[in-house]
């Protein structure tokens, strides 16, 4: 018998510290597999954010820099501008990239910075215990929207990849999900393309991945995937939102 599914070399052997069923692990595995498949583990510097995603620095087997909350793109740009021949990616939650770090993400995209950003959108602040995020759905209860997100008070959820897709320097923007094996494979394809875009030096690439937070959503892992599919996927634009001609020919 041959091993047909093995742990990727893109990951260290440290077990993830996430709650059971949290799909952060799935997404990190996909990114790590892409690093291995493109043979860039030793050429890559990852930028970790603040929040649950911040733990990723221990799990990937490439070099890492820990950024202040929301500053991952700025830090990544500093690394990339200093070492243009290395691969740089940020791995950030929705709060990190789309709330506190909005300005850095938007300007990284506008300038066409040659880095890859992975945004993990679980519609909530996980690490701090389930507060409202810019991506929290209308009516969704969190500890800071205990009566449900009220658009009159809190506004409507922000579809961040759509904003980024509007900017010239963003050459590849995709929104994917990890709710089913099929979608997981699609997500991996998008992530791989986002890294290839950087290898080709084409511009800024963003992949937003819809993810679960069973603990703060108060659901089982299986129910969380169903909830994601039924509630989040209809709200957020899914699929490849921006693919320039150059990216198509990759």
């Amino acid at each position, binding site marked *: 018998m041959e091993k047909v599914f093995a742990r990727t070399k893109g990951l260290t052997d440290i077990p993830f510290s996430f709650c059971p069923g949290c799909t952060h692990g799935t997404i990190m595995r996909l990114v790590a597999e892409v690093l291995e498949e493109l043979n860039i583990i030793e050429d890559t510097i990852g930028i970790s954010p603040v929040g649950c995603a911040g733990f990723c*620095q221990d799990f990937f087997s490439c070099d890492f820099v820990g950024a202040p909350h929301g500053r991952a793109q700025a830090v990544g740009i500093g690394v990339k*501008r200093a070492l243009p021949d290395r691969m740089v990616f940020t791995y950030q939650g929705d709060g990190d990239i789309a709330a506190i770090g909005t300005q850095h993400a938007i300007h990284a995209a506008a300038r066409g910075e040659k880095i890859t950003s992975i945004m993990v959108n679980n519609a909530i602040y996980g690490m701090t215990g389930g507060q409202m995020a810019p991506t929290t759905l209308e009516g969704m209860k969190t500890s800071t929207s205990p009566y449900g997100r009220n658009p009159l008070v809190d506004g409507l959820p922000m579809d961040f990849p759509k904003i980024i897709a509007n900017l010239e320097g963003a050459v590849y923007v995709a929104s994917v999900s990890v709710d089913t094996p099929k979608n997981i494979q699609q997500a991996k394809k998008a992530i791989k393309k986002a890294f290839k875009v950087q290898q080709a030096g084409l511009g800024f690439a963003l992949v937003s991945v819809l993810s679960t937070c069973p603990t703060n959503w108060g659901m089982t892992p299986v129910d969380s995937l169903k909830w994601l599919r039924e509630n989040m996927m209809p709200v957020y634009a899914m699929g490849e939102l921006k693919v320039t001609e150059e990216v198509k020919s990759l």
Partner: protein
Amino acid sequence: MEKVLLKGNEIIGEAAIRSGCKLFFGYPITPSTEVVEYLSKHLPPKGGTVLQAEDEIGAINMCYGAACTGSRVMTASSSPGISLKQEGISYSAAAELPMVIVNVNRCGPGLGGLGPAQSDYFQSVKGGGHGDYRLIVLAPSKAQELYDFTMEAFDMADKYRNPVLILSDGFLGQTMEPVVLKDRPEPPKVDRNWVVNGAKGRKKRILASYSLTNEIGEANNQRWEAKYKEIQEKEQRWEEFYTEDAEYLLVSYGTTGRICKSTVLNARKKGIKLGLIRPITLWPYPEKAFIPYKEKVKGMVTIELNTGQMIEDVKLAVECKMPVHLYRRQGGMLPTEHEILDYVEDIFSLTAVEEV
């Protein structure tokens, strides 16, 4: 060696280029803007990178990233912009990253004005950002020092793996003065076995400041503390001017330190034994400078462009063994050498001294 006439801010830019600075990340703010302008023009032709960031927070975090690769990197701003950078400065100190930060101090608080001030003394030497860290802080008082200290700042940053702040002000930054473009000093031999540049042929590295284990957190703090103590021991710097026989001492740095020299000369003409201690490192504060005088002189006056900030460090340095007074101007105003002397004569009742 070439002697040129440049604006203070441009001098810093030129010194950075000649120090091997490879990257500069900034955001325009008066009165520091000429630093980013000068480098935008002169660094890229030398193979360096200048990027105007989306804001000061972006700029300092780009410095943080670039410093992680071991590249020489600098940013410059003025007071409100430096406030925005504090988060990144704290992270840089915690990750022990060498970088040079220039603050062309303007007056505050708030948006304040554009005139010279020393209102950011506390911010510069007492932390500024959160946590318990120190920056090495250099205080130039003239064009040549802007040049020399910028070069030294890069070397000190590398030597101690610590951010170094150059505390200039609107007067120094905007004044044109001749400067000798000295050669770069021999850079210190530094260990680069910590940089993040891809884990090729070595174990992966993480540069971060995060520790959820209290025991590790304390060990980190103790390691930083030991480094800060070493810097305090080795790097205190100051200039003395007519101190040997002084009965009274002025203590002042930067622009006012320079004005105070004229005050001292005028006082000497009147027979007043006045001297000056001009701190060059504001952190580590040059406490050693005060040791010979703390039992000897009758009193001291700090001359500051704020409500009295450095005076606290002077009082600590002399262990309150003598009266320490403050003469200050604020809001962008500079004192004249005469009004400083008037204050000295008044506060120490020296008006009876005859002119010689």
